[in-house]
């Protein structure tokens, strides 16, 4: 039974437990199909629209869904923008920007189809008219914040080199606009991200990272950098990461929470990869700071910091040890008791990966007092958290020493996971059965199987395991059946040689095949 479970995909993704050394970690990538709504808090926006500033008066057209009105407005914009009068061009651009800044249904497609992008990109080069540059940049930024198709239109109209050039603009608001637009393009996915990098976006951005840059500007800059670190398949190349990392590390020491948050997200993207990628981050010596950030009040900082730590402890044993040495284990208990269940879940995930390590690291989980909050999560966490906590128990019991397993049982983990056998999630149930099996293996080594059987029965676990023998899922019912047969029933044909028989006797005698014996 256990081997069958171990061959499971997720199991092989835990470090150490899997059979393929290259795929030993819990990756989020495998789960690309999602049924749920995209998470709101869990991650920052890939792309951002710039909404109208509140005090600007909006024309009726700016806020109507009436196709007619919009279409008329756009025709007017086209006329203005395509004309030669700078004043009209500015007016047209501004009108377009306002339309595109609506919170609901900005007419991105209509603007593109009106053929306006060519002109807007052209306007980006108009150093003589900063207002025009600014309005055009804003419009393009918002178009780029749409779907991939929208972004593609912006890129294909040649906006990238123009925006990169604008980064150096002496007008801070224009440069900032360019930062933002480039962030949107980078956030679209790996190919535009790499395209930007090829065009030299990184040095151009880093050149603007100066001590006297205003906080608002730095926030956008950090966000754009984080988008340049984002996405895999492929990851951003090492040279680019190396270029950005010192600045990101520097930003991680900033005092502004929003900058910290985006810088943390950047780190979380960089650590969400193979061990070599994690190594690059660890080598910067940032771990103690990350651990420190775990203690912050702001959810926007804690979430990505915890995600980064979670990624790191899903790396090699050495990498996990580095995180432990940086003090992560003293930060985790309070996160496991955090009021937000999403934080509890991430913390439990990190614990589950540490528990997949060698028994020395498991011992540190014990020493640092993580078992009590873990059992607490098993009992009282929300379902997603319980699921991670169950993985932690299974990893712990499959890698821990007999004494460590006993200790975990004494902390109440067994009773808690037995209760969760009622969970309406097949995988969780199977993972629990695996943990129970591990605990029994430990009990066998101690000669305490009978005692464990009684304990399981006392807390109602036997009833639940028996009930699972009727489960529709084959793996679950086989695992349950194996446990029952092996531990809860009182007792426990395959002929290798042939024997002739008559009615009254078996015929004794070896066949004469003169084969050499060789053992």
């Amino acid at each position: 039974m256990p081997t069958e479970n171990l061959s499971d995909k997720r199991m092989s993704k835990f470090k150490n437990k899997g059979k393929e050394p290259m795929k030993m970690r819990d990756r989020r990538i495998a789960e690309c199909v999602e049924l749920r709504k995209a998470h709101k808090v869990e991650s920052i926006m890939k792309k951002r629209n710039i909404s109208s500033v509140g005090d600007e008066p909006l024309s009726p057209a700016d806020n109507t869904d009436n196709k007619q009105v919009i279409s008329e407005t756009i025709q007017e914009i086209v006329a203005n923008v395509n004309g030669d009068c700078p004043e009209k061009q500015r007016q047209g651009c501004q009108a377009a920007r306002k339309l595109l800044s609506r919170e609901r249904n900005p007419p991105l497609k209509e603007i593109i189809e009106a053929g306006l992008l060519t002109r807007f990109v052209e306007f980006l080069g108009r150093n003589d008219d900063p207002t025009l540059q600014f309005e055009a940049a804003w419009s393009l930024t918002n178009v780029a914040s749409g779907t991939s198709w929208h972004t593609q239109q912006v890129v294909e109209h040649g906006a990238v080199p123009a925006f990169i050039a604008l980064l150096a603009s002496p007008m801070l608001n224009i440069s900032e606009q360019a930062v933002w637009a480039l962030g949107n393009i980078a956030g679209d996915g790996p190919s535009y991200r790499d395209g930007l990098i090829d065009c030299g976006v990184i040095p151009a951005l880093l050149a603007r990272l100066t001590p006297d840059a205003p906080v608002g500007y730095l926030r956008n800059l950090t966000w754009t950098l984080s988008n340049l670190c984002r996405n895999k398949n492929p990851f951003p190349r090492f040279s680019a990461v190396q270029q950005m990392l010192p600045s990101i590390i520097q930003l991680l020491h900033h005092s502004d929470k929003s900058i910290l948050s985006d810088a943390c997200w950047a780190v979380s993207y960089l650590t969400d990869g193979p061990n070599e990628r994690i190594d690059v981050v660890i080598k910067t010596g940032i771990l103690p700071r990350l651990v420190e950030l775990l203690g912050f009040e702001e959810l926007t900082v804690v979430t990505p910091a915890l995600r980064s730590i979670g990624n790191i402890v899903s790396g090699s044993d050495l990498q996990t040890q580095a995180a432990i040495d940086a003090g992560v284990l003293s930060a985790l208990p309070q996160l496991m008791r955090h009021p937000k269940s999403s934080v509890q879940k991430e913390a439990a995930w990190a614990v589950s990966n540490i528990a997949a390590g060698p028994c020395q690291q498991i011992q540190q989980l014990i020493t640092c007092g993580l078992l009590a909050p873990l059992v607490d999560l098993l009992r009282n966490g929300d379902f997603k958290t319980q699921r991670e906590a169950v993985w932690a128990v299974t990893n712990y019991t499959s890698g821990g020493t007999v004494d460590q397993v006993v200790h975990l049982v004494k902390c109440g983990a067994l009773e808690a996971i037995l209760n969760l056998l009622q969970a309406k999630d097949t995988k969780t149930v199977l993972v629990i059965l695996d943990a129970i099996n591990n605990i029994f293996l430990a009990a066998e080594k101690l000669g305490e199987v009978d005692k464990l059987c009684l304990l399981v029965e006392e807390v109602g676990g036997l009833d639940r395991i028996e009930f699972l023998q009727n489960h529709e899922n084959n793996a679950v019912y086989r695992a349950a059946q194996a446990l029952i047969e092996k531990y809860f029933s009182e007792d426990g044909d395959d002929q290798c040689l042939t024997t002739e028989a008559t009615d009254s006797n078996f015929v004794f005698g070896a066949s004469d095949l003169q084969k050499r014996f060789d053992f």
Partner: protein
Amino acid sequence: IMELNDRNLQTLTEYLQKTLSPDPAVRRPAEKFLESVEGNQNYPILLLTVLEKSQDEVIRVCAAVTFKNYIKRNWRVVEDELNKISDPDRTAIKANIVNLMLSSPEQIQKQLSDAISIIGREDFPQKWPDLLSEMVTRFQSGDFHVINGILRTAHSLFKRYRHEFKSNELWSEIKLVLDTFAQPLTELFKATIDLCQTHATDINALKVLFSSLALISKLFYSLNFQDLPEFFEDNMETWMTNFHNLLTLDNKLLQTDDEEEAGLLELLKSQICDNAALYAQKYDEEFQPYLPRFVTAIWNLLVTTGQEVKYDLLVSNAIQFLASVCERPHYKHLFEDQNVLTSICEKVIVPNMEFRSADEEAFEDNSEEYIIRDLEGSDIDTRRRAACDLVRGLCKFFEGPVTGIFSGYVNSMLTEYAKNPGVNWKHKDAAIYLVTSLASKAQTQKHGITQANELVNLSEFFVNHILVDLKSPNVNEFPVLKADAIKYVMTFRSQLPKEQLLEAVPLLVAHLQAESIVQHTYAAHALERLFTMRGANNATLITPTEMAPFTEQLLNNLFKSLAIPGSSENEYIMKAIMRSFSLLQEAIVPYIPTLIGQLTHKLLLVSKNPSKPHFNHYLFESLCLSIRITCKASPDTVDSFEEALFPVFTEILQNDVQEFVPYVFQVMSLLLEIHTSSIPSSYMALFPHLLQPALWERTGNIPPLVRLLQAYLEKGATTIASTAADKIPGLLGVFQKLIASKANDHQGFYLLNSIVEHMSPDSITQYRKQIFILLFQRLQSSKTTKFVKSFLVFINLYCVKYGAIALQEIFDGIQPKMFGMVVEKIIIPEVQKVSGQVEKKICAVGITKILTEYTLQALIGLFELPEDDSIPDDEHFIDIEDTPGYQTAFSQLAFAGKKEHDPIGDAVGNPKILLAQSLHKLSTACPGRVPSMLSTSLPAEALQFLQGYLQAATVQLV
């Protein structure tokens, strides 16, 4: 290819007709024929045509069933195997089947719907892309016969989402289903609910509409099981509001008269409870705003739902919902209020704990089922069980207040009872049940309640309310309350002080006489459980001395209760008999002459038709105990047991009562082992029969037969050699048969070891070489750890008996240098795996004898390995609760147990000393060589151990 013509249709119809014949001579050939032609192209199309066109309703259904089975057998395409259905047929089936299903009457519709889901499991979605859209379009048909067909098919396609593991493949499919199906399903849900209002007075329309709603609710569960889909999160308001309304809905027209069968309304509400429970467990963050409403609605539902059996599933689902919600910390506040708690206790828990008339009927007329449900906990879905779970759930956060509220109830119910016991006895039953469920925090079969709620005074309740019923002079009055009282003692046996248990024992003995089956069964069971309790020093809590005053009464009543109608094969009573014998030991000797007659008589009766495996098992155990206990004091009495038992045994063996044969062999082994002189002739007469291959084909016979043959060898090796030498090849044939099997090879070695140990060398010399060749062949063909361990024990035993030289000669006689190879490849690397005290000793002594420079180290390892010193459970306490039925192999009788046998015995006391002495002897034979050989070939640690052995033996190497 079968043409689609009238003649073929006619032939097919005829054969289908024949498959319905009750006469197997007609039916079987027809079935065979159909199977033989099903590989032909067009066969399924012909079937569907008959199904569609036949005028005969019976033939149509038959065609539908045949079609479904055909699909089940053949649709799946197995890699590297022939595609059993041609591609054109597959396409044609998929193109027509949905339509055909929808236009068929319900009975056929169900078969075709099953067929669709089998096909769907293989082909959907990739190879059947338009299935869903085809189905969805039909939602608009407005014909609810069609719609229900679609919903049913969808349910069988989607229900696997409830138990399969998350995977990208599965989730992609679900996503696809959601994209096409979720919106139309939601629209249909709303439209159906509207129609229910429009047709609120039309019972026939309502029935169809409500079965649609029930199916829609099931689909909701499947589609929401894996994760909360974005669509349903966005539309939660619609779904939950409507679910909530449906929960609170009552329509007189939909109430059924049937008391047993759940009606449509109940099924729908039950499913809604499941849906709410799913959301509460998995998606609590999103569901939180709706949860309080559902708690209230479900609770109101419980308060207003009647006691009829048809509501059982609904009520237990509803209570389970509350139970799972109330123990979640973030919902705790919903229950915190004292009034809420009181009201849940009063209106939900107490009413569902009441003893209903259905329970009363079962108690009287269906006691066996009642006992299984009540005693063994197969009551998962019952109201009482659900109510108990709710009590336990509430106690997680509110143990104090809940105990307080219930104490008040218990008191008032007991007062009610006291006013008029004859009328109000059910109040006391409920009170006892409530106390039990409140007090039980942890429970096992072996020990009863192991952890109790400290707020409940169990001992006081025993004195004030339980003892009265136990002591009641009329044992047949209020049997339910009596059974409750007995069960109380049994349940709380670990919590009650010993004096109270001792006080209860004679009372329980008296209740063995009660007419009520439940009552005397509980009494027997309670006694049996009390007798297995442990006291100080691991001995039984209740001693034979303490039982002395009641012994005669106990035995009398136990055997008398077997005569009460309905209890003639009562396994609880038989088990109590076994346990009493085992507890009382010598004290039963005076009664055995009478009792053995009764047991033998019982055996004769049940052997005609063995139907109660547990009863029979305990019967044989009781026989073994009678024999062992009596013969321990006076071995001579073994003859009288044989006299009493052999006639029945002969009958069992002659009639080949398969269930009993293994038991008979075990009892015979026990009897034979008691004999001190040579083997009686009655046994020898049986000997040839024991070697018959037919007996050995049944796996359950093997262990007891081996055991019996071992007893023959131990007591009669010489007799066999002198009077039955011609049977020796047959005996060895058995050995050969057994070692050929990975499962039974150890049994073969048991037999072989006994042969080597007990048979004189000259009687087996001629077979020796063959024996070893067989072992080597097995070793070569499949070398398992178990086999190697047994093999090592055997060759060492052989070496002990015949000497190392003899062993080496026989090995090398089979193949040159074989001995060295076995030493190097098997003995040295594997000997440390040998387990068991005696086995290790045999190996130690054997290896000492074949000592060479390279085996020495392995030997020291054998000595210094940690020994397995676990002590077997005291036999008396052995629980045979889960003894498997006859179909599984072998039911070992604990009390026929064989003592461990040491073939070396006192000849070698301490094998370490033997090693030291043997080395000393060797070194004096060739002085100077042994110490240098040891110091070069052994690691320091091993040398140190060896030094210790030499010192202990007071010898020195020279």
